[in-house]
C-alpha cells in the first residue's frame, strides 16, 4: 500500500474473484465517478435550462457586464484551465508512483482552485455592492442605486439566475478543493479546513453573503471526517485519477457558464 502505482490488470474491481470483464476495463470507482458526473451534468443541465428559459422570455435581457467584470472572469477562467493542467500532472505523477510530486501538483491545483473561488467571491461582493442582489441576501437591495440596482428591481431573473448558477458552480469548486485536499493530505487537511472556516467566519463582515457561505467549509469538514473515518486508508493512483475526473468536470461546467452568463451579457456600446 506504500506506493501509489497503478496496476490495472491485477485489480479491476477491488474484489477478489473471477468476474466478467468490466465495461471498458474501468474499475468500479471510475465507473462510479463517471456515473456521478452524468447525473451532475443533468443537475447543472436543469439549472442551465432554467437560465435559458428565463432569458428567452425576458425581453430585453439585461447585458450589464463591463470590460472589468469580463477581464476578471477571464482571469478566473485561466485559473481553472491551469488547474486542469496541474491536475493532469498530478495524475501522471501518481501513475509514476511519485508521491511527492503527486502531492505538489495536487497542491498547485488546489491553489488555482482557491484563487478561482476568491476572485469569484470578490466579484460577487463587488456586484452586490453595486446593487445586483436577490432579496434574500443580507444587504438590502435598496442600499445601492445605479444600473445594476435597477436590473435587480426590474428583471429579478437576472441576478437570480446569475447567482444561482455561479453559486452552484462555486460550491462544486469548493467541494473539489476539499476533495483534492483530503486525497493529498488526508486527515492533516481537516484542521486546515477548520482554521479557514473559523477565520473566514470571523473576518468576513456579517452583511456579506460569504459570511454565511463559508459554512460550506464546515460541512466539508464534517463529511471529510466521516469519510476518513469510514475509509482510513492511503489514497492511490486510482483515487487521484478519479478525483481528477471530478475536477475536470467542474472545469468543463465553467466553460458553459462563462460564455452563457458572462460573455453573452457583456455591455453593448
Amino acid at each position: 500500500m506504500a506506493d501509489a502505482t497503478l496496476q490495472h490488470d491485477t485489480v479491476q474491481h477491488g474484489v477478489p474473484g473471477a468476474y466478467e470483464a468490466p465495461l471498458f476495463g474501468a474499475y468500479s470507482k471510475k465507473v462510479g465517478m463517471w456515473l456521478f458526473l452524468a447525473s451532475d451534468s443533468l443537475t447543472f443541465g436543469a439549472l442551465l435550462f432554467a437560465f435559458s428559459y428565463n432569458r428567452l422570455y425576458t425581453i430585453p435581457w439585461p447585458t450589464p457586464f463591463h470590460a472589468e467584470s469580463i477581464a476578471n472572469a477571464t482571469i478566473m477562467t485561466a485559473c481553472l484551465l491551469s488547474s486542469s493542467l496541474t491536475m493532469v500532472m498530478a495524475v501522471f505523477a501518481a501513475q509514476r508512483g511519485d508521491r511527492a510530486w503527486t502531492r505538489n501538483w495536487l497542491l498547485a491545483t488546489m491553489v488555482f482552485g482557491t484563487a478561482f473561488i476568491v476572485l469569484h467571491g470578490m466579484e460577487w461582493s463587488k456586484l452586490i455592492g453595486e446593487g445586483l442582489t436577490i432579496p434574500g441576501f443580507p444587504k438590502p437591495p435598496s442600499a445601492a442605486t445605479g444600473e445594476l440596482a435597477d436590473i435587480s428591481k426590474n428583471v429579478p431573473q437576472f441576478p437570480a439566475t446569475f447567482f444561482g448558477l455561479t453559486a452552484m458552480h462555486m460550491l462544486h469548486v469548493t467541494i473539489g478543493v476539499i476533495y483534492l485536499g483530503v486525497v493529498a493530505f488526508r486527515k492533516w487537511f481537516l484542521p486546515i479546513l477548520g482554521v479557514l472556516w473559523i477565520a473566514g467566519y470571523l473576518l468576513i463582515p456579517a452583511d456579506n453573503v460569504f459570511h454565511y457561505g463559508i459554512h460550506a467549509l464546515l460541512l466539508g469538514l464534517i463529511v471529510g471526517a466521516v469519510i476518513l473515518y469510514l475509509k482510513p486508508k492511503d489514497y492511490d493512483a486510482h483515487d487521484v485519477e478519479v478525483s481528477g475526473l471530478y475536477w475536470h468536470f467542474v472545469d468543463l461546467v465553467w466553460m458553459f457558464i462563462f460564455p452563457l452568463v458572462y460573455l453573452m451579457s457583456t455591455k453593448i456600446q
Partner: protein
Amino acid sequence: MVAQDAHAHSAPQGFIRKYIFSLDHKVIGLQYFFLALTAVFVGMFLSLLMRIHMIWPGVSLPLVGEIKPETYLSLLTMHGTIMVFFVLTTAPQGGFGNYVLPIQIGAPDMAFPVLNMLSFWTTFVGFVVIIAAFFVSGGAPLHGWTGYPPLSALQSAGPGEGLGADLWITSIAIFCVASLMGALNFITTTLDLRAKGMTMMRMPLTVWSWFITAILGLLAFGVLLSAGILLLMDRNLGTSFYVPLVVVNGQVLGHKGGSPLLWQHLFWFFGHPEVYIAILPGMGVASQVLSTLARKPIFGYKAMVYAMLGIGFLGFMVWGHHMFMSGMSPYSAFAFSILTMCIGVPSAIKTFNWLGTLYKGRIRFHTPMLYAIGFVSLFVSGGLSGPFLAQPVLDIQLHDTYFVVGHFHLIMGVAAIFGIFAATYYWFPKMFGRMMNETLGRIHFFITLAGTYAIFMPMHYLGMAGQTRRYSQFTEVAYQAKLIPLQTFITVAAIITISAQIIFVINLFWSMFKGPKASDNPWEATTLEWTTTTPPPHDNFGGVTPVVYHGPYEYGVPGAPRDFVMQNDPATVSAH
C-alpha cells in the same frame, strides 16, 4: 493494492454493525423494505381518511378530529408523496433490488457498500423530515405531490405552505441525493461485478429492470434536485424563478417575472421517468415469476430487454403530456402526443410476451404467481386509458379529473404494489428462511385484486362525469350530487381493501417466525439466488464466486434430468 476494507468478507460483529449501520446489501435491502412497509401504512391510512372525508365531510374522526378542506389537501399531498417516493421508489429498487441484484449476478456485495449504507440512511432521514411536516405549525403542505407553483412557492399561500412546505421540499431533495447514490451503485454493480459467464444477455430480467431503473433514476433525480433548490430559493430567498407578479388579498407580493411553467417542465422531466422507476422493477419481477411458475422460458427474452430499454429511452421524451392544458403550442402537443403513444408499443410487446409465457405453461398457482398475473392484469387495465389521456383533445376533458386518478392508480400505484407483493411472496423464503402461508396469501390476493378494481375502475366514470381531482367537498356541489352513490361504493371498497392488508401483515410476521422452513430452492427456479443457502451467507456464496453457463429461464428443457437447468449448472448442455 486496492484492498477494499469493505470487501473483506468476515461477517461484522456487534449489533450495531450487523443490523443498524450494516454494509451488507442484504441487511440494507431489508432495511429499505421495512422502511417502505412503514411508509405504505402511513400512506394507506391517509387515503382512508380522505375517502371517509369525501363521503362524510362533517364527521369527526378519532385522533384527527374533523377534516377541513385544507386538511384534505394536506392529506392528499402527503399520501401521494409518501406513496410515490417512499414506497414505490423505495421498496422495489432499494429493497428487493438491493437484496437480490448482487446475488443474482453472482457478486459478494454491491460495488460500494459504504455508499449503499449512506444511501439507505439518507432515505431514512428524508422520511423523518417529511413526516415532521405533519407536526409543525400550519401542518403539512397543500400543493399535491407535484408541488406546482405559485401555490408551492409562496409562504403565504395557505396553512401548511410555511414550514411544512419547506420540510416537504427538503425531504424531496434529500431523497434525490439518496436515490442518486443508490442508482450509481446499482449501475456500477451490474456493469462490473457479474460472475464469469453472466453476460448481459444472461442476466435475469429482474436485473435488467433494476439496472434500467437505476439509469432512469440517475438521470431524473438530478433534475428534480435542481428544481427543488430553485423552489427553495423562491420561497426563502425571494427570487422569482417560478413566480410571476402575484396579488394575494389585494396585496402585491415581491415576486416578478417568473414562470410556473418552468417548474412544470423540470418536474415532469423527472416525473414521467419516475413512473417508470416505480413500475419497471415490477415488470422484472412479473417476468421472473411468470416464467418460473409457468415452467416455461420467458417468451422473447431479448424483446423484453429491448422493450424495457425502449420504455426507458422514450420515457424521457414525453414529459409534455402532463402539460397539454398549460397553454402548450399545438405543435408541441402533437409531438408529445405521438411520442407518448409510441410507448404503447414496447408496453404491448411486454404484455404479449407475458401472455405468451403463460400460454401452454404448466402453471403453478402459488401466491407469487397470482400476484404476477394480477400485475399484468392491472398493467393492461391501467395502460388502456393511457392512449386516451395522450390525446391533447381528450385531455382537455379528462385532465385533473378522477379519470386520471383511476388511470395512474391502476398502472403505477397498485400495479407496482402488486409487483412488490409478488416479490415479497417470491423471495420471502430466501430472505427469512421460511415459507409464507399460501391460504392467507390467496385470500389476501383475491380481496386485494377485487378491491383494487372496485376502487379505481369507477373512478374513470367519475372523471368522465366531471368529478375534479383534489377536491374535498363535492357533496355540496349540485351537479356532482348524482355521483354520491358511486363515491360511497368506492369508499366502502377502500375500507375493505385496506383492512384486508392486515392479513398480509399477519402472514408476513407470523411466517417470519413460525412458517415452515424453506428449502434452498422452493420454487425450483434457475437463477443464482436459489443456488446458495437459505438465508444466504454474509458474502452470498460462502467464499466462492459462481460460474454461469446458462441463460436465466431454462425451464422445461428436453433431455435435462429435471425440468429446469440452474444457471450455474455445468453438467447440462445448454438448450438455448
